[in-house]
């Protein structure tokens, strides 16, 4: 689904302070920018948190989004991660209706995608799958035929490939 809109992935290093996520979210809302996905957690250095944001760049150029983000006092660094220069992963969990007749087919799909079965009941399965976001998209479209009860994706996280120089969009040292 994310592949339909022009989008870019940025990682935003922020000070790990109260309300910073709200500042980022507010900025997107106020300026009419669209977040496709967002993942956030502290980094190995607990003074900072890292946000991986997939942004919709159809109506506004990435350049404007980055400059506005930089105006937030707590934003320390922003870099763009292009798919070819980075490794991306995302986690998905789904509970699927799995009565006797279709259970085998679902398990087969999960196996092909190297997913895991986390929980079983007489007529439901909860499965998990991680991988590149496009792989999750493919899996999602296949299991869609089997009545998804609940589905949660984590939003993508990404790191630059080892040895690649990631363009810092505007770094402050």
């Amino acid at each position, binding site marked *: 689904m994310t592949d339909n809109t022009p989008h870019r992935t940025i990682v935003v290093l922020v000070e790990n302070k*109260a*309300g910073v996520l709200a500042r980022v979210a*507010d900025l997107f809302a106020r300026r009419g920018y669209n977040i496709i996905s967002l993942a956030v957690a502290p980094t190995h250095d607990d003074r900072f948190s890292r946000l991986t944001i997939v942004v919709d760049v159809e109506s506004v150029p990435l350049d404007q989004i980055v400059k506005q983000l930089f105006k937030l*006092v707590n*934003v320390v660094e922003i870099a763009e991660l292009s798919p070819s220069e980075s490794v991306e992963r995302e986690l998905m969990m789904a509970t699927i209706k799995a009565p006797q007749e279709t259970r085998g087919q679902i398990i087969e799909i999960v196996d092909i995608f190297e997913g895991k079965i986390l929980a079983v009941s007489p007529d439901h399965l909860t499965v998990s799958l991680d991988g590149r976001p496009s792989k999750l998209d493919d899996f999602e479209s296949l299991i869609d035929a089997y009545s998804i009860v609940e589905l949660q994706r984590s939003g993508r996280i990404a790191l630059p490939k080892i040895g690649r120089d990631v363009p810092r969009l505007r770094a*402050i040292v």
Partner: protein
Amino acid sequence: MSEQSTSQPTRLNGGQALILSLEMEGVEVVFGYPGGAILPVYDPIIDSKIRHVLVRHEQGAGHAAEGYAHVTGKPGVCMVTSGPAATNIVTPLADAYLDSVPMVCITGQVALPAIGTDAFQECDTTGITRSITKHNMLVTRAEDIPRAVHEAFHIATTGRPGPVLIDVPKDIVDANNPNAYFDFTYPPDIDLPGYAPAAAPSPTSVDAAVEEMMKAERPVLYVGGGVLKSRGAEVLRRLAEMGNIPVVTTLMARGAFPDSHELCLGMPGMHGNYTAVTAMQRSDLLVAMGSRFDDRVTGKVGAFAPEAKIIHVDIDPAEHGKVRRPDVSVVGDCRVAMEAMVAKLEAKGGSKAFADHTPWRRQLSGWQEKYPLTYQPSAPDELLKPQQVVESLRDACPADTIVSSGVGQHQMWTSQYWRFDHPYTWVNSGGLGTMGFSIPAAIGAKTAFPDRMVWAVDGDGCFQMTGQELITASVERIPIKVALLNNAYLGMVRQWQELFYEERYSEVYLSHEMPDYVKWAESMGCVAFRVEDPSEVDVTIAKANEIDDRPVVVEFRCHSDEKVYPMVPAGGSNDDILVDPSQRGDAE
């Protein structure tokens, strides 16, 4: 308290620490209003050398702080309590944010354990003000107060200036709370890893800008508030004179370049004069200097200055390309950028480095002669013409008079007809367009410069919003003067209804008589006059200018149907500018 130094830690409570921190920042005056949550901070004010001006509404505190900041360049400081006081100061915060006014606002907050419980006078102040402040913070420990104050002043005054809010829970400033005491030291540095605005533009961008300036045949310096914020008026003049480049000054930049200078074209935009607007439309190079392509300047963006290349100089990177993509982007402080440009141009031969702008200047002079600002003076028995009042006032006041205005027709007439020959003499609400700005802003300006004459030119609608601050002016002995242009209507709205809503005047009538402005002003301790006859204008202004021991209000009874011209209809192209009816029919 003021004798404290950073080297000798003293045990203080949070409230004392807050006031001492303000003293350490050199704060001379705080505009404020006390209340429950901020009470502990008000106690040490009694012992402080800082002057506190008690306003009559929290909005007044904010606008007064803005007025102080506009004329001094120093951050204005305001302080109010939690809840409704914080929401009352939202408007000035938004105003200061849009006009890049350095301001530090301190709000009380309910005690930490009560936050989130819907306590009495609780509101989510940092949440509400997040998008209308440059930065805000909720302080949660008394010992963090000095750092919060130090960082707030640093953020408010550096880079693109703006308002910063510090929300202070009651318990951390409470003298009765043992945990609110700590050994006070003032941080010598700041710790903001994500904040480092660059003042100096890159030399390559300056070189590229200079190359374009030398080539241009029809250049215009499109000067905005950033020139004033950077204290760049002097070098602007050097640049304009060296290059023989005409200058337009936006509503936020009036006074940044002298109106009486031969290169000055005056104000552009929706109610700008014909030459300023049309010069931009026909220009081949706009040097946007601390201006932001506001919709009130550009009109329809797609039709704005279609032949012009753009050099954009602004300290805020996000302004570059926000509205119009620049051909040359110079990110940095306007003054620093202009100094670099002037140095570069001097090395290239100074005036000789530029193309010949004589034909361009001749064309502009032709427009100036053909389409000056104009109006029909009132006939003997008619009510006053507001433009005439502004002209009379202008001619009767010293050149360094500070003028503030509210928002609406009177604001445009003042900007058009005053002669701004000095920077920092014009105080107004440009971006947010806040009615009621003028009186409290004038109080702030007069507080900063008690020896200068300060006139608030106000409308009747605006006066009714913040007129009660004249009580503040009387009680605190801040003798501002108010020229109330009473046209009995919300004039600007009426103008739009006349022109664009088939003269259907919906909810814009206020009346000349109600309230009785003279009685109202007198009840607030002011000297008040009413002028209805054109022959009384000059003599009454002279009387008002004689009074310097209390505020003065002069009510000028004005025509109701006078309109502000020229006008670019909203959303229209600047090419469709409507000049005064007397000048129409012979447009080129």
